[in-house]
């Protein structure tokens, strides 16, 4: 009975040695040339006119990139509704809208906005996930009472399984998927 053991083992070892000639390593995978999010668009509308300002880097990865940032121009006294759109524009023929994934995984994600100086305007998040915790893809901008300049910082936190199930969310949890600032000018 024991004699029968050795034959299959030897066959197995021999097969393993013969299989050595598959050269899978010669077909490497391409590295993504950019971050998976290349573009962050802030779109605002006062009902008659839509304005878009974007943060964009399609020129490379890490510190080899070339970042272009638009200024968001707003009108004193107006009220806007807005949205944030995340794109992967690495391939101009196949632009991927990454923010759809945020919508699908709303219970794992949340946008946080910071206005600098805080007196510049008020930003309120309008959309909520199924636990009634803000998502931040849609918002309103109001109280533009004075002319001035400042910045709007948008931070997207990825909080898989950590995002609170109630309340207004917690900025200190999870990892950061987006953290950009764009200049704002109120005329």
């Amino acid at each position, binding site marked *: 009975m*024991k004699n029968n053991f050795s034959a299959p083992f030897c066959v197995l070892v021999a097969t393993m040695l013969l299989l050595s000639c598959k050269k899978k390593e010669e077909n490497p995978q391409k590295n993504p040339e950019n971050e998976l999010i290349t573009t962050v668009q802030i779109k605002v509308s006062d009902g008659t006119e839509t304005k878009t300002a974007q943060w964009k880097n399609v020129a490379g990865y*890490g510190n080899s990139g070339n970042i272009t940032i638009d200024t968001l121009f707003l009108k004193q006294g107006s009220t806007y509704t807005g949205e944030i759109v995340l794109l992967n524009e690495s391939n101009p023929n196949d632009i991927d809208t990454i923010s759809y994934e945020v919508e699908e995984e709303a219970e794992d994600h949340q946008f946080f906005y910071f206005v600098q100086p805080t007196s510049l305007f008020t930003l309120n998040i309008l959309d909520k996930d199924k636990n009634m915790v803000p998502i931040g893809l849609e918002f309103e901008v109001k109280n533009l009472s004075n002319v001035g300049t400042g910045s709007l910082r948008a931070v997207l936190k990825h909080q898989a399984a950590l995002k609170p199930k109630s309340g207004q969310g917690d900025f200190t*949890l999870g990892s950061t998927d987006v953290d950009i600032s764009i200049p704002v000018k109120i005329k």
Partner: protein
Amino acid sequence: MIKTLYYVYFLISFITFGQDNCNLFIKGEIYDVSNQVISDATIVIKNDSIRTITNEKGEYKLLNLCAGQYEIVVSALGYNKITKTMYLKHSIHQDFVLENDGVSLNEVKIVSQKTYNLTEPTSDLKEADLNKSRGQSLGEILKVLPGVNAVQTGPSLYKPMIHGLFGNRIVTINNGLRLESQQWGSDHAPEIDPFTANKITVVKGASGVKYGSEAIGGVIILSPEEVLTTPGYKVGGFVSGFSNNNQANFGIKTDVSGKKIKGLGLRLSSSFKKGGNFKTPNYYLANTGSSEYNLSTTLVYKYKNWLTEVYLSQFKANIGLFRGAQFGNMEDLATAITSSRPRVNADFTYDISKPYQEVKHQVYKLAQKIKIDNIGNLELIFGAQNNYRAEWDIKELGQQQDKATIDFGLTTYSANINFQHSIFKGFVGEVGTFAMRQANVVSSNNVRLFIPNYRSYNAGIFWTEKYATTKWEFEAGMRYDNRYYKVFKYDKNELISPELRYDNFSYSLGANRLINKHITLKSNIGTAYRPPGMNELYADGLHHGLSSFEIGNQNLKTEVANNTNLSLVALYSKTKLELTVFNNVINNYIYLTPSIPAVVTVRGVFLSYKYVQADIVMRGVDLYFEQLFTKTIKYQLKASGLIGKNRLNHDYLIMMPPNRVNNAIDYIFGKKGIFHDLTFSLNHQYVAKQNNLPTTKQTLEINTSSNTVTFGQNDDYLAPPSGYHLFGSSLSSNVKIRNQIIDFRMGVQNVFNITYRDYLNRYRYFANEAGRNFFFQFNFNL
């Protein structure tokens, strides 16, 4: 003529350190002065029923000896008896020459002494030591040895560190094959089931000659017990448990050999491990559970001087990574570092979720040993290894569902031919050659690859010789290696395949001076080299663990280590002392250094690191001391200290092990009722704060919502943690039921539930170490 009796007596009862390894042997031949073999000579061990006589070829064999000191007296009818004291640490080949009765002085004449005594400093863990650590991982087990530490990634991933070097700078040999896996990653633990070994030897210091490239820091050698090839069966196993993470371990090993086919033996070995979240004194560490399944089988066939071995093994593990150490940019890192407890709350669970590592390692080995009388031993080993590693991070935006973030497949085929020649004019030696083919295939889920695909060929040849007299042992060796890499990667849209060639010569010299029967002085000079790793050459991406970009450097040169060791070994009946000092000079030592300014991306700010080289030196001392005060009280001390410095600017190196001291006191009750060797142990460990740090070059300030954090002090994220004292205790014994021995142990680690952090834990920035841990272990042999 009077037939002389041959006395061999047990000089000293090595209760304390003699009984660990009891499968050693002494064998050899007995000649007369005219070089004729003497048959029917008897070799006996007094107070021990071991006795044997030489066969018609003058050969003898003393089997199943424990490590310890023996005095051997040999004589034969018509010859003078001779006496030799030897400390048996390894199995040895010992020939004797007997002079004709009444003709000469009654002195020892040794034709040759084939020892496996190495001139490098080594430390062993034998079966008895390994029984104490069943259920722990390799890196955790080896930490008990002086000069050996572990680089940790959380509570369950341990990477062995020898004299301050780890990862790609250490070679691990398991059952005769070099472990080939993705050892460049500091969170990649060795894919080895320590249960398959009944002895682990750590060679400290550069040992490139015998073990090839990369053995700059040292070598870990795991050897299994010989498979049973005489009719019968053997079953051994263990059960152990740890309370901190509710970890359960189980292992069983069976040897069978039948009567029908003589010399055929089969072993099946299997072990299993499952643990949940670890708990620090104040909180659980989220997602730190792990599970592991191992299976191996060995088939051995012994026929006359031929021995064939087929070995198959599989290691499989899923290891959860601490959720509180997963984050995006530097601000997340700053938040994690400054919060007093992890931002991720957890309870106990066995469930492992993302992020986790999925690891599989398969080994196929075919070995043939041939003993050629009076010429030597020939050994051929063919190996195939398949290493698969998948890292499952939390899915990011833009990535596919259900695909590992990155996975690596490393396939290695190797062939070794070694020939150990028999004693020739007092020399014993070995020549060997080996060839290896390796291919690495990496794929990712839309993240940058850390290392490229490559294929490599490696060939080498070595020669070592040893010469021994009664007072001296000399050793010399040299080796030549050639390594070729062909890399396959995309540069933008173009497939490029750069070729790299390395060839290196290494040598070693050593001498042991046997000052008297108790004291040996060992000295050794060894060299080793390491070609730059693929990550060091080609990394260009985000290292998720530490929020940093790593930038490879294609101009890196080969690291070369030149290591000098000096050891003093003193063995007395109640005292054992081993003192080693070492000086390891490494040229072109490769390390990461932060480069400022930080990288700004859509995800915020990141620190960037680049690979650079420097000429360094690592100096240190290891001490082991054991004293039996009375028959019941044994004291043990282990201490190690090390300094690593850049030789050019005298700056300290980062991530060097802090100085440490271990004390243990055993109270030996002896036999109490059915309990044999009942022993109560208390142990204490002190790890000092690492105060030798690189100078601060550049700093980076990051604002979080509540704090401003300065990175880059001493080239690090956070100052080293304070020193700490840990206490533990255990009660051990064994019971004999018929012929079965059950060895058991229970105890507690970190008795006082001390809150501490360890400098060598890569997660020390985010969380405390595990707290109090009760454990039990049962080892059985049927």
